[in-house]
């Protein structure tokens, strides 16, 4: 390796703002690498890298023909994880070194270049300061790539229809820059190496790189080469707008699905796009692709999302980077501002469903309270037994034990249990008995105390209320369990009611209660603990029944109305599941699909897609 020049340049232009990260080291130099037509830019990592709050996420190198700029991207100029390169080059070098380097393979022989190295700040989690806003840069001394200056090769054409706008349903911190890739992209005589988007706060610049957020292929979009499977993956991922991995084997089918614009890939449980069954997808491919020719323009569109900290406006430039030579610049005509949206598009399906549920509940509650007639409600044996059990406790002169689960008040099961506690304590007060409520969480105990007080008041016996009977035991699971055991062993309640969210302690409590020969009613929606309540309690209340107890006990028309509404929604759920199952069965058995069957399957798939949960 022969070093032609090693130039030290002091730190230059920082970007706007006092809060930017320190520029990428005070030293940056360019050398030519012997024997290859490439220039190597070596620089020192930012002083802020690996220290302090302002973390450097990546480095980007821009190139110009003289120190005055304009600095433009060149291929592979992103040094996201520079240290990997250092490590890869050989173990002779200390990994602790703070020097990083990048090779410019697209420089043309005989021409002079100046490089600008940017250190891009990572955004701070949970704070207002965002990525890319605070960056710093250094510029190298000019250096020429040796060799005869040949004719500059004709570069590819630039991108088309570039636009920048705030994404729909955004929180006001992003700008989407979208464009159609160069017509020369995708194999041809003027190959494209990728695309880079730069941003500026003034139209005149300086244009700086930024850290993109959630964008699939990043600021440097890989070219579309239909023959290379890896690129096809990226291409599709870009279309789906997610950074998930996709199995290349499924690509042709998926591409048709997506391109047709008919079917949204539903993704799996976590919203991750996932291959549909090969056979089914194949069927749909034939159906859809045959009738609708793929739209070439739609498939060539790319979007890069910029995360911004301020209101803007922001100006963008999109560079098409050829394999050799200068990047082709396209200015996005109109600047963009981020916009906070009040409606989230991807949660719209849920908003609709939830809104319908609300409406249904309101209507049924209204109707129930107006007509006032008794509504049918299925028997819940455990609750029927409760009254008898309370009576028995009074006879025996022993208290009732009520445990509202061990979870925090945040949990809806705890809230539901506290509401039931109100009804139970009313019952207890009417029978002139006492109720003991050991709690695991102090705030639950506080609410429980209020609820019991209210119950005694409603029963007309406020003087019988004993606040010390509602007790915080301990917020540690098993200590609470030990303490509650102690109450069971020594105060010997005649009836134990366990309603709420329970974990491993459920069985210890229920077994102790059994030994003490108390009547036990256990209810929870916690699936792992239900078998233990079923095994060790006299009555078990399963899942949804827990939430219906309050209505069941009071038979208040309004509350029963809300139960009715929940049943209607359940009927809807059943319908959806059955419809989807039939569609799936059809798709699986009746392939290849045609005519009405295909339509049914398609609608079933659409239904599934509509139900995709938000993130």
């Amino acid at each position, binding site marked *: 390796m022969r070093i032609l020049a090693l130039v030290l340049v002091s730190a230059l232009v920082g970007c706007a703002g006092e809060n930017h990260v320190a520029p990428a080291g005070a030293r940056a130099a360019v050398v030519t690498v012997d024997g290859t037509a490439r220039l190597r830019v070596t620089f020192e990592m930012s002083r802020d890298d690996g220290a302090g709050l302002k973390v450097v996420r990546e480095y980007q190198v821009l190139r110009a023909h003289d120190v005055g700029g304009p600095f433009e991207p060149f291929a592979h100029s992103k040094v996201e994880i520079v240290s990997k390169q250092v490590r890869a080059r050989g173990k002779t070098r200390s990994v602790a070194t703070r020097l990083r380097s990048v090779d410019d393979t697209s420089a043309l022989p005989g021409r002079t270049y100046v490089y600008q190295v940017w250190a891009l700040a990572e955004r701070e989690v949970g704070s207002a300061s965002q990525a890319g806003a605070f960056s710093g840069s250094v510029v190298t001394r000019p250096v020429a790539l040796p060799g005869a200056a040949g004719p500059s090769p004709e570069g590819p054409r630039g991108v088309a229809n570039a636009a920048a706008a705030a994404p729909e349903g955004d929180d006001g911190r992003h700008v989407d820059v979208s464009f159609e890739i160069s017509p020369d992209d995708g194999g041809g005589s003027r190959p494209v190496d990728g695309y880079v988007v730069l941003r500026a706060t003034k139209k005149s610049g300086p244009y700086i790189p930024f850290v993109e957020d959630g964008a699939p292929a990043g600021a440097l979009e890989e070219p579309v080469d239909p023959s290379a499977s890896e690129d096809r993956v990226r291409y599709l991922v870009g279309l789906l707008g997610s950074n998930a991995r996709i199995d290349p084997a499924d690509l042709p089918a998926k591409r048709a699905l997506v391109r047709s614009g008919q079917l949204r890939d539903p993704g799996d449980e976590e919203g991750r796009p996932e291959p549909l069954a090969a056979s089914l997808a194949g069927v749909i491919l034939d159906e859809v692709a045959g009738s609708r020719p793929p739209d070439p323009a739609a498939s060539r569109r790319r979007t890069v999302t910029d995360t911004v900290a301020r209101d803007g406006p922001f100006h963008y430039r999109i560079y098409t980077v050829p394999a050799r030579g200068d990047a082709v610049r396209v200015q996005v005509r109109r600047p963009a501002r981020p916009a906070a949206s009040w409606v989230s598009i991807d949660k719209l399906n849920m908003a609709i469903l939830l809104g319908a549920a609300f409406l249904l509940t309101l209507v049924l509650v209204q109707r129930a309270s107006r007509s006032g007639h008794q509504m049918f409600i299925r028997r819940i044996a455990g609750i029927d037994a409760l009254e008898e059990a309370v009576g028995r406790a009074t006879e025996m002169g022993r208290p009732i034990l009520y445990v509202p689960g061990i979870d925090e008040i945040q949990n809806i099961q705890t809230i*539901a249990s506290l509401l039931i506690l109100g009804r139970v304590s009313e019952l207890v007060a009417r029978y002139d008995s006492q109720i003991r409520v050991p709690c695991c969480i102090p705030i639950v105990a506080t609410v429980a105390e209020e609820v019991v007080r209210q119950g005694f008041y409603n029963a007309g016996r406020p003087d019988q209320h004993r606040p010390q009977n509602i007790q915080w035991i301990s917020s540690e699971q098993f200590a609470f369990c030990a303490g509650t055991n102690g109450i069971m062993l020594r105060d010997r309640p005649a009836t134990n009611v366990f309603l709420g969210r329970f974990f491993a302690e459920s069985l210890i409590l229920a077994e102790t209660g059994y030994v003490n020969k108390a009547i036990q009613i256990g209810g929870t929606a916690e699936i792992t603990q239900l078998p233990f309540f079923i095994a060790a309690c006299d009555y078990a209340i399963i899942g*949804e029944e827990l939430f219906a107890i309050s209505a069941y006990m009071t038979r208040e028309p309004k*509350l029963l109305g809300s*139960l009715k509404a929940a049943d209607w929604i359940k009927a809807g759920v059943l319908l959806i599941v059955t419809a989807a199952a039939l569609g799936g069965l059809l798709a699986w058995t009746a392939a290849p699909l045609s005519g009405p069957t295909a339509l049914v399957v398609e609608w079933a798939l659409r239904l599934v897609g509509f139900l995709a949960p938000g993130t």
Partner: protein
Amino acid sequence: MKQTLPLVITFVLGVLFVVEFFIPAHGVHELTALLQEWGSVLAAFAFILGGINLMQANLPRIWRREKDWPYKVVLVASALVMLGVGLWEGQEGRTFLYLYDHIFAPCNATMFALLAFFITSAAFRAFRARNLEAFLMLSTAVLVMLCVVPLGELVALLFPEPLRTTIASLPSDIKDWILDYGNNAGRRAIMIGAALGAIATGLRVILGLERSHLGGE
């Protein structure tokens, strides 16, 4: 005022937190995050209330020399010692951790371990094939239990080689199948049902249909 104000607070906050889920604008999230933080501060202060409650419940029993009063002394003393040491030394304090490691942790582990015994007695007593439902539950449980431990592999040893591998892997296949389908069907139904119940309960609270926690007087 005593009745309506709490209802209004519940309604306004409840609606805010439902709607917040659908609004991406970050100002709303910051507001709800702040409110939630206050909620957690409130829950933390309830611990102090809980501590006072604990003293109120135990000290009189000690003064009055009620049954088991010496144990209450142990309880109050150990709580005060732990609290004092913790506040004095901090969470990483040597004595604090010593007490934690040698008293709290073994108690915790042993209480948890009691379950191994209770599960035996619960299985003996309650897992009886009284009807079809009980039979299904107990037979699935037994099947899974036998498939988890290497008993199948032990049985497989009795067979010649080509059969042996098939038989040896059979239990874990059965177990996984039950896990993936039999178990999931019930689990999902419970989750869907419970979610509906939870939504209905939340709605009733927000709309003030359920007000046993705030009404009265």
